[in-house]
Each structure stands twice: as structure tokens, then as C-alpha cells.
């Protein structure tokens, strides 16, 4: 790829901004920093970064506002950084159009994984990796979009229609978190709303069919209070 990819770090604490920039630069990215919402928004419009790392607790402008404003005209990948005290905000941020989130404190590898996944998803058409044909593989798990079946170590997992839909949806966004609301809307339509009990029950059944130990999942991870994330493809 010609030139380094530019990442904008929006963070009001300068010590945190500087260590995130250091990690990014050590991993071959070009890092820019902005300390407030207004500065961030003008940097996004004038410098056109390839991705944004956005802290939700900004002093001057609500991070949520930036996400909504950017989403009006761009699919620019946004990874939200949240602290433990903003647990509920991250769900709102994801539903407002953020691509993923990472919770403080995070390690280098975690941060880089999130950014690479977010960058990859926008570089494939429509933000979806793989269309409605072909296969997705991660570990011993194979999702066959043509046959509409899921195989574990070559064996058919015998998923029901809904279970297959959930797994295939997660696999198309592998590596990225999908909120309960997004999954429910995708499966049962926009009217389904609110109750994610059915989804939990479906997920429990899926885990009993595809995981060796449903309490130590290898393929589909829970993000407590947020949603589910499938392991990255091979």
C-alpha cells in the first residue's frame, strides 16, 4: 500500500493520547491527535483519516455527536474507547454507527486487532466481508453460505434456520462486535425490539452445538451487556 494509513486519535488526556500514538506509529500507521470534539471534527473533514479512535468522555463535545455527524456523510471506521464508568454509552455509540469499541485499559495487541478489523471491513464492499456465497472459516468452524449450513470439524452442526442466520450474520462481521439490537433487527425485523431473551436462548443452543464447552467458547464470544463477537476468520 502506498503511504501510511492515517489514524486520528481523539482523546483529551494527553498521556493516553501519546501512548496510543506511540503504539500506532510502532505498528506502521501515521497518528494524528485531537484533544477535543471540535478539533476532531475539523481534523476529520480536512485531513480525511483512514480511521478514528474516539474517546467517549470528551470535555467539549459529546463523542456521540461526532459519530452521528460523521455517519451522515461517511463510512469512516470509528473505534470507540470507553472507560468502565461509561458502560452504557458504548452500546449507544455502536448503535449510533461506531464500528467497534475497546475498553480501558487495553493492551497493544487488542487495540491493533480492533483497528485492523475496522479498516478491513470498510475496504470490502458495503462493509460486509464475503457476500452471500462462498464459505467462511475460523478454526474448525466453517459457515457454508451456499448450503446454508455450519460445519464443525467437517460435521454438520444441525443448526435451525434462526441459529444459522445468527451464526452467518456474526461470521460476515467476524472480529467485530454486533449489538443485541442489531442482531435482533436483522433476524426478526425492526418491530422485534427490546427483549433479547430469545436471542440468549438461541445463542445457548448454538454454543451447545458448535463449542466444545459452552462456558469456554472458542468461536462466539460474549461482550457482556453489549452483544456478540465472532472470532476472526482464518
Amino acid at each position, binding site marked *: 500500500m502506498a503511504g501510511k494509513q492515517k489514524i486520528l486519535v481523539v482523546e483529551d488526556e494527553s498521556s493516553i493520547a501519546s501512548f496510543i500514538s506511540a503504539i500506532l506509529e510502532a505498528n506502521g500507521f501515521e497518528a494524528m491527535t485531537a484533544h477535543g470534539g471540535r478539533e476532531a471534527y475539523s481534523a476529520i473533514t480536512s485531513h480525511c483519516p483512514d480511521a478514528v479512535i474516539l474517546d467517549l468522555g470528551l470535555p467539549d463535545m459529546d463523542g456521540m455527536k461526532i459519530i452521528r455527524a460523521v455517519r451522515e456523510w461517511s463510512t469512516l471506521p470509528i473505534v470507540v474507547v470507553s472507560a468502565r464508568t461509561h*458502560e452504557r454509552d458504548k452500546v449507544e455509540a455502536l448503535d449510533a454507527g461506531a464500528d467497534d469499541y475497546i475498553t480501558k485499559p487495553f493492551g497493544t495487541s487488542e487495540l491493533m486487532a480492533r483497528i485492523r478489523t475496522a479498516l478491513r471491513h470498510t475496504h470490502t464492499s458495503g462493509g460486509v466481508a464475503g457476500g452471500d456465497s462462498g464459505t467462511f472459516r475460523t478454526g474448525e468452524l466453517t459457515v457454508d453460505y451456499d448450503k446454508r449450513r455450519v460445519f464443525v470439524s467437517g460435521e454438520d452442526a444441525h443448526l435451525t434456520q434462526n441459529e444459522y442466520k445468527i451464526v452467518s450474520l456474526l461470521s460476515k462481521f467476524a472480529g467485530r462486535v454486533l449489538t443485541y439490537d442489531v442482531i435482533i433487527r436483522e433476524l426478526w425485523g425492526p418491530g422485534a425490539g427490546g427483549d433479547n431473551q430469545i436471542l*440468549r436462548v438461541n445463542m445457548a443452543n448454538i*454454543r451447545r452445538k458448535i463449542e466444545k464447552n459452552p*462456558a469456554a467458547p472458542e468461536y462466539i*464470544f*460474549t461482550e457482556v*451487556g453489549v452483544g456478540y463477537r465472532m472470532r476472526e476468520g482464518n
Partner: protein
Amino acid sequence: MNMRKKGEKPFRFSWRDLGVTIAILAAVSGIALLLWNFDGSDVFAPMLFVTAVFLIARYTDGYLYGVIGAAVSVVAVNFIFTYPYFAFNFTLSGYPITFISLFVTSVMTSTMTTRIKNQEKLRLEAEKEKTRANLLRAVSHDLRTPLTSIMGTATALIENGDKFTREQETRLLTESRDDAEWLLRMVENLLSVTRINGEGASLREEEEAAEEIVGEAVMKFHKRFPSSEVAVSVPEELLMIPMDAILIEQVIINLLENAVIHGGREDGISLSLTRSGDRALFTVEDHGKGIPENRLPRLFEGTLPGEDSDGSDSSRNMGIGLAVCHTIVKAHGGEMTAENKKEGGARVAFALPLEKRSI
């Protein structure tokens, strides 16, 4: 602090108390009318209304309803139930005596009831305050050590950085990172406790799939202790538990970390989720050193670390961690137990109710 505001407002209005007052008065009037129609005598009417006033004062907060009850009773007894019927009688024996006796009954009962209720509140508050003070003392004592070591390392590297070998530097920095991680966990624990004890704060309980919380907790634990081995088991049946997921996850992680840090072994740890009646039981077992017998009785109280004779670094955290776990579990209406297994190692378990509690 806020209980004082609540408990000592003698004339606070509440719909519940008004309802209780009306119900008791209506019931007593009904009985009196029934008896009166039955045999025409009126001697029991004042007695019935004294009982009514007593009951009102006992089952409502403050003085207001007792006094209202007394006033209504005086009118009712005087107007309806004493000769001349359905007319007021302002003779000495008819009016003031009944009124005074009813009034005294109401005020005395209200005073005693209020005092008992306040004492109970004070006692609970004092207990909470004690736990909080213990925790604070233990924590501030504990925070000093890692902070000192981080500062020392940073200063050493800034001032004499060129004199260290690459390995020494890595070792120092790794220790600093571990210390910082420990500090962060401690602060998270404290945040959880303030979330429970905080003014007006309550748990954000939602139905959660217990196995998902267990899975997530184990995954986070593995991030911190990559070489540890935990055998996890969950039942075939999906257990949905009303809980604050973040807090329960923290309890599980704390227990697993204790197993490694204080048990002294990274293998042979097991975490199981089972159903026992209307409760879900989470059990963490290890094959480590076990819990010192002298600490068992007061394990959940957040006792001061450093009371141990060895005074080693590994003794920190356990007191606070377990006290926090205990507080969280109790706030969920659950129970927590800790014991040493006969075959060696410790077993810490907590049970959470499967059904939402009605409060």
C-alpha cells in the same frame, strides 16, 4: 445520613399510610355498627376505637396518622356510638375524657414505634459505615506499596537508564506494569462498592445468561494469567439470573485471581455453575495452600492486610477482594461461603437467586 431526614419527619404525608388509616377506621366502624345493630349496647365502641388508634399508630410512620385516627375516633364515638346517638355530647365525661385517652394512646404508640424503627436504621447504618471504614483503611494501606515501586522504577530509569541492561530494564518495567494493573483492579473494586453503597444507587439488574458471564469472566482472567488452567463446567440447562453482569463478572474474576495469587498454583483451578433449587451456585476450587484458619472467621470483612506474620506482598488484595465480592453478592440477595477442602486447597462459592426478588 439520609435516614435521619426520613425517620424524624413526624408529619410526612404518604398515600400508603393514609390508606392504612382509612382501612383500619372503616373496619372498626363496621364492626361497631354490626355489634350495635346486633344487641344495641354501646359499651364496646370506645374500646374498639382505642384499638383502632393503637393499630394506626403502630403501622404508620410518624405521628400524623395516629392523631388523625384519634380525632376521627373521638368524633365517631361521640357522634354515633354514645347516647344521644347521632348527636354531639359535650358533657365532661363524653367528650374530653375519650379524646384525651385516645390522643395519649396515639402519641405514645407513635413515639415508641418511631423510636424502634430509627434504632434499627441506625444500627444498619453503623454496620455499613464500619465495613466502609475498614475497606478504606485496608485500601489506602495497600495502594502505597505499588505506587512507591512504580515511582521508584520510573525515577531509576530516568536518572540511571544507561546503567541497566536490557533485561533489567524489561524486568523493572514488567513489575511496574503488574503493579499498575493491580492498582487499576483495586480501583475498579472500589468503584463497584461505591456503586452499591452510594446514595440512592441501586443495582442495574437484568436477566443474564449465567454461562455467558462465566465464559467472559474466564476469558478476561486468562488475559491476565495466560498460563493458568481453569476447568469450567456449566449445566446443560440455560440458567437466566437477574444480576448486574459487570459486578458478578468481577466477583468471578476476583475469586479466580485469589485462587492463583493466594493458592500459589496456576493449575488445578475449577469453576462450576450448578443449579440448586431456586438458586444458581457458582463454585471456585483450587488445589493451593488453602485459607489460613485464623482468617476464615472474618474473611469477608476486609480485615487489615499485614496482620499476617509473614507480611508478604501476596497477602494484600485478598481481604479487600473478598469483602467486595461479599458486598456484591449480598446486594443481589445471594450468599457467599468459603472453606478449606479436606484434601487441600480452598473452595469459595456463592449462590444467587434465579428469580427476581420483589422489593
